[in-house]
């Protein structure tokens, strides 16, 4: 199998991946080859959302895609959300304040997903529960849009309180 050397742009940094097996997923490239272990592998088949990262501002399941396909794209992970001075992103702050997690394993994916979701919502993109005009975020719209991110500890109530608070800022 031919190996590949290429570059990824992650959180504004250029990372060179040398002699990479083409089977390496974007998730494994980020975790094992770039040392950014915030994104998590919960199922490796796009069912749990723990691997969610942002690519050009859109949320994707990084376990379901190959690293090779993402050369030149703007990848952002949980490690890249806080300000340069370390101050937390409003969603990160709100997740802490509203106890939007217990074990914390799904949390990087939940937060990255929420960043992408709020951008989709603000752009007026419909969801499966949208009936005509996109309705208010609180309630069915938020719950539908965040249902790709599983939390087995059951922090869903805190997660949506956190997202609504951050969205209002």
């Amino acid at each position, binding site marked *: 199998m031919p190996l590949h050397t290429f570059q990824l742009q992650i959180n504004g940094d250029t990372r060179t991946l040398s002699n990479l097996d083409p089977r390496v997923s974007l998730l494994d490239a980020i975790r094992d080859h770039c040392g950014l272990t915030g994104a998590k592998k919960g199922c490796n088949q796009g069912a749990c959302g723990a691997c969610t990262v942002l690519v050009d501002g859109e949320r994707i399941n990084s376990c379901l895609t190959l690293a090779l396909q993402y050369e030149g794209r703007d990848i952002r992970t949980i490690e890249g959300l806080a300000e340069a001075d370390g101050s937390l992103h409003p969603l990160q702050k709100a997740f802490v304040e509203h106890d939007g997690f217990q074990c914390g394993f799904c949390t990087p994916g939940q937060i990255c997903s929420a960043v992408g979701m709020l951008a989709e919502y603000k752009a007026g993109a419909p969801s499966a529960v949208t009936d005509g005009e996109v309705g208010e975020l609180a309630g069915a719209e938020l719950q539908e849009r965040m249902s790709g991110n599983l939390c087995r500890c059951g*922090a869903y109530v*805190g997660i*949506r309180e956190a997202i609504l608070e951050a969205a209002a800022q």
Partner: protein
Amino acid sequence: MSILNKVIRSVVQVMPDQAPDELIASNRYLGRSINRLNGPDKVTGKATFTADYPVANLAHAALAYSTIAKGRITSIDTKAAEALPGVILVLTHENAPEMKVPKEFGDGSSNDAGTTQAKILNTDHVSWNGQPIALVVAETPEQAEAAAARIHATYEKEDCVTSFEAAIGDAKQPKAIMGEDPEVTRGDVEQALSQSAARIDLTFTTPPHNHNAIEPHACIAQWDGKDDLTLYDTSQFTAGVATTIAQVFGLKADHVRVVAPYVGGGFGGKGGAWPYIQLCALAARETGRPVRLAMTREGVFRIVGGRTPSQQRVAISADDAGKFLGFVHEGVTAQSTHNHFPEQFSFPPRHLYSMEAYRIGQKVTDLSRVANTFMRAPGESIGTFAVESGIDALAYELKMCPVALRMRNEPDADPVSGSPFSSRHMRKAYEMGVERFGWKSRPAEPRSQRDGDWWIGQGVATGTYPVYRMVTAARVRISADGTAVAQTSCQEMGMGTETVQTQHLAERLGLPMSKVRFEYGDSTLPYAGVAGGSSQTVSVALAVQEAGAKVLKELLALAQKDERSPLREANFEDVVAKDEGIFWRVSGGGESYAAILSRAGKDFVEADHKTGAPMELLKYSMHSYAAQFCEVRVHALSGEVRVQRWVGSFDTGRILNPKMAVSQFRGGIIMGIGMALTEETMFDDRTGRIMNPSLAEYHVPVQADIPDIEVVYTNEPDPHTPLGAHGIGEIGITGVAAAVANAVYHATGKRVTSLPITLDKLM
């Protein structure tokens, strides 16, 4: 119950109680909604979980699994796997070095954490469909997985029982269930059932479940020579894994170190030393490399067992005032041919209701399937589904409010043992729940509320979970810089362990939280048991309290020797830890820890302490209680059930951190909603193979499934527990499936007796 147990119990009855914990009402930190201390690390990706550890020169392992339930491997072809680039080693029963079969997980009082009596890789015999048959080590995870997929085995199958339904008739009564009698009886229950104003007799079934923590099991093994092993493991029992892996490889237990500071959810699934751990250690030893074995989601289903299926009969009779006359709760669970865990579903009614006559007991049957294990509220979760559905059905027979029927049968003492309750405020929990839910405005008649295409209904059920306390050791150190640290090997899977124990240590020693640290998640620290049985918070708290008292006594002794100390004349009973030091209880004079230590020329004072056995559990009936209220809507055409409102009212001793406690309660309720409506591990009854081993096909609740969940609690401290607290990790799930089923009945008039309540059962 053994004769010895009976003797101990009768002796304990006359022993005096420990005085209530002096911090029972203290609220400088305890009782306050303090944010999780590890929150910032968890929201920034800095929290290091097992598979995240950067280890140099790491090799990667993957497993291949059997595809038959029982028989012999007649051939195993590893050539294709070995020929792939990057493959370092392939081990099968033909070449795997001998490993000892470790002792099975007991009743929680030992360090043994084995999960199966089947040999792993050291036999051509197959005991379950999914048993590991080959271990591959390669340079990369991709290479290891690809190679494992190329292992090909042929088998000679043997007859075996893989269907729970088919095995029920052969069930046998085990000698004991968690140390309790497998069956308890009083009076002539058949007579009591036949002569009554109303009776119900229903049979319930519950399917197998899997924990499905979002973090799959993973291990990194690193040997230092032949006798020292370090394991990073996704464990909720670091000491148990250390002991078990030492047994497997013939090492001294203290030569195996297990590290698990962050664990991505457990729910019981990470309590045992499942076979992946020993295989990871074996891979590392045989290759001379550190090895990571990160289980796939499917792999977790194949080798880590879940909750047993059950069949339960509930028959209850009552007089026309609702008083329970006859009460039967009996049935069957499954374990495997290679493990022993009869899940205690018959425990709840032993402690919940007054009954004139009863027969409460259970049997177990052995299947050729993956070993079962404990999963959140083993016993009480599925037991309350049957019992609390049965009581609801009886309430309709009697035309009584289901809340009133339960209160009518509220006992004054434990209905089976006769022991006094340590703390029971069930009536208050119900009153609070009734008020918050607006229960009184619910119409009595089922199938009487409709909103468009949806039937609406409200249901209620009781939840309960025992108080357990485990023997636990802790070390406490107070240093000359005025800081303190407490250490135990206990675990944090998201319950809030680190935060609540830091609150406790600061309160106990009179220090600010910023000056204390709680260290955990490492088997080399003083011994703590499995994070299970909702026991960890109080078990660790008592060990820290008693170790802390030793340290304070030693500090006071230093002060007493010093003429300049204002504590020179003080006895231990005269002083209290506060304001960062030791002070006279009455006059208020005293001095700081820093002052005592610096004058004595010491850097620190520390002490280890191991707590005594939980004798209070033999004297008192100690339990937590819940009243679960919910509203559902059921689609008239499709049968779809949606939960649209929930109020959980809890009586669980003193609440130590309301914010985190509410999260725990909600988490339990949410897992219970999954159990009620969607969760089922589907075995192919012909082959014993799990057919939905993924999060795409095993349906845990998602964000859209969960309504607002209100939580209220009595906050009544238990005078017989450390801090007045009870553990709360499991009570939340109990009663939930029954509350949903009862609401579905109220909405539709259909009594669903088998979980999950899927659409087809309501068509």
